[in-house]
């Protein structure tokens, strides 16, 4: 791939036969990236076709996948984790991105005071580690401390409070919303940047035509920031189907209660690394990682070939 012969050929080739510096500039990145990222990824995909039979590492074809989808115990866990992961993703798409877009729209209003302060505040949770975010919210939502019931009392909804993280019906929604709280800064910033890049003339022209306020946002600005919305959607997708940390810190590796908050990341962790009584199983771990890879790859391809190409880009 890094054939260093110059592409001009002929005379140029005789003048500079080998440009070693290109190799020197590229080598460290290519070596580390290939050795630590690409090869382990390929090796993991390869191992999903192998398993240990009678103490020997043998090729088993699609047997691991058959176990994952066919064995009722594995299949139940897998579909549960996949379903939860989709709910996790849908909550992000339905809550995080619209609120992020709305905040960005408000922040980009011309002449808004304290915009820098608001921006800093909204982005702060994104910088905190999962451990901090997870535990802070665990404490706040804890019925023992009583901060959440007290807050709900302020708005007259104390009766609605429940130990959400401990109840199987609400735990996944609660964890998803905490994750939304943490990551809202990313869509907000990217949309904010896209809104700032809309040229003044376009807005002025709209104002002369009497398009202002809500109408201006929906008819003029929203179509112009569609590419940025595409980007935040795919970033959310990849991030969510690769998520692990927040569920692990809030609900533990078993993703309780009763695995109702189990997503693919925690399922992969328990499977390949083992947890408590469960022994680590590298082959099944590789199989799950392969499925996650295919899911993420499908999402990225849909984005690259289905969405990104169809979105009209406006050149200013």
């Amino acid at each position, binding site marked *: *791939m*890094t*054939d*260093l*012969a*110059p592409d001009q050929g002929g005379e140029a080739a005789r003048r500079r036969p080998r*440009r070693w*510096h*290109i190799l*020197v*500039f*590229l080598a460290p*990145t*290519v070596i*580390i990236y290939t050795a*630590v*990222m690409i*090869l*382990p990824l*390929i*090796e*993991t995909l390869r*191992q999903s076709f192998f398993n240990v039979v009678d103490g020997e590492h043998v090729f088993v074809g699609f047997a691991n996948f058959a176990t994952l989808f066919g064995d009722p115990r594995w299949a139940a866990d897998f579909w549960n984790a996949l379903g939860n992961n989709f709910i996790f993703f849908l909550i992000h798409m339905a809550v995080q991105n619209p609120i992020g877009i709305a905040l960005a729209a408000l922040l980009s209003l011309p002449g808004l005071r304290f915009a*820098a302060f608001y*921006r800093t*505040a*909204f*982005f*702060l*949770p*994104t*910088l905190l*580690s999962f*451990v*901090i975010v997870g*535990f*802070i*919210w665990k*404490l*706040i939502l804890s019925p023992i*401390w*009583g901060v959440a019931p007290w807050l709900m009392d302020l708005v007259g909804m104390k009766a609605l409070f429940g130990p959400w993280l401990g109840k199987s019906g609400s735990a996944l929604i609660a964890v998803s919303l905490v994750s939304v*709280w943490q990551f809202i800064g990313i869509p907000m*910033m*990217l949309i*904010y*940047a896209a809104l700032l890049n809309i040229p003044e003339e376009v807005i002025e022209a709209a104002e002369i035509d009497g398009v202002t306020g809500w109408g201006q946002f929906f008819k003029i600005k929203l179509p112009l920031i569609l590419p940025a919305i595409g980007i935040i959607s795919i970033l959310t997708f*990849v991030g969510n189907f*690769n998520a*692990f*940390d927040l569920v692990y*810190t809030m609900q533990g590796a078993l993703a309780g209660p009763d695995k109702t908050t189990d997503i693919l990341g925690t399922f992969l*962790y328990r499977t*390949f690394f083992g947890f408590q009584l469960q022994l680590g199983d590298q082959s099944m*771990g590789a199989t799950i*990682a392969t499925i*996650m*890879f295919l899911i*993420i*790859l499908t999402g990225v391809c849909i984005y690259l070939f289905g969405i990104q190409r169809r979105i009209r880009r406006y050149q200013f």
Partner: protein
Amino acid sequence: MSKARQSTLRTSLVHVALIAYTLVALFPVFLTIINSFKSKQAIFGQPLRLPGPSTFSLIGYETVLKQGDFVTYFQNSTIVTVVSIFLVLLFGAMAAFALAEYRFRGNTLMGLYLAIGIMIPIRLGTVALLQGMVATGLVNTLTALILVYTAQGLPLAVFILSEFMRTVSDDLKNAGRIDGLSEYAIFFRLVLPLVRPAMATVAVFTMIPIWNDLWFPLILAPSESTKTVTLGAQLFIGQFVTNWNAVLAALSLAIFPVLILYVIFSRQLIRGITSGAVK
């Protein structure tokens, strides 16, 4: 007149909405920090009051500093983050320069190859990565973490930096060549100083996920001497889960470095995002 009043009303409504979300964003952090300075009784009795003379207590911080080995954890996190960022910036800039500056066969292909890593998370290769680290004896070393984070940070760094390097004027570089500078000197002495703002942006983007990562420290380097702050805090809180003073103090200690870094770098970060570094 009525139009002016209407627009004042609109501005106030906008501020009400923004302040409301500011409270949502900051309240949990604020709550944690104020309660970390209170006695246990006050934490439960009046969780929302600021610490007063009668409720002020540093017992939580004392427990954390006595029990946890936070100085080591902090050191580990700093070493891993700083070395990884340095390698990502150096190697990333070199590769970005090669891709942006020279036309050679496979240039586009190489760009695409490196771009895979922007979208596909390195975590998916963890199974083989752990085996590889065990085989090379790197498990439970900071080197393992540094290698992984460098590989993880490089794709986006190359992508962003090569965009910026394309904007460096050719005349300048050619003038350097005529003056007899080697390609290395052109890179290190002419181009690197010019893309410094972009490097700062990349540094911030690289730093956040490394400092906050839990997955790789948990799997590749969980030993006592190689724990990072994130993993250390996680385990400490797990052990002291009923000691609320200690938990709140540990959380506050973990927040402070991030807060300080954010104050230092927030302008750079926001400028980087709004200038389109991550399009």
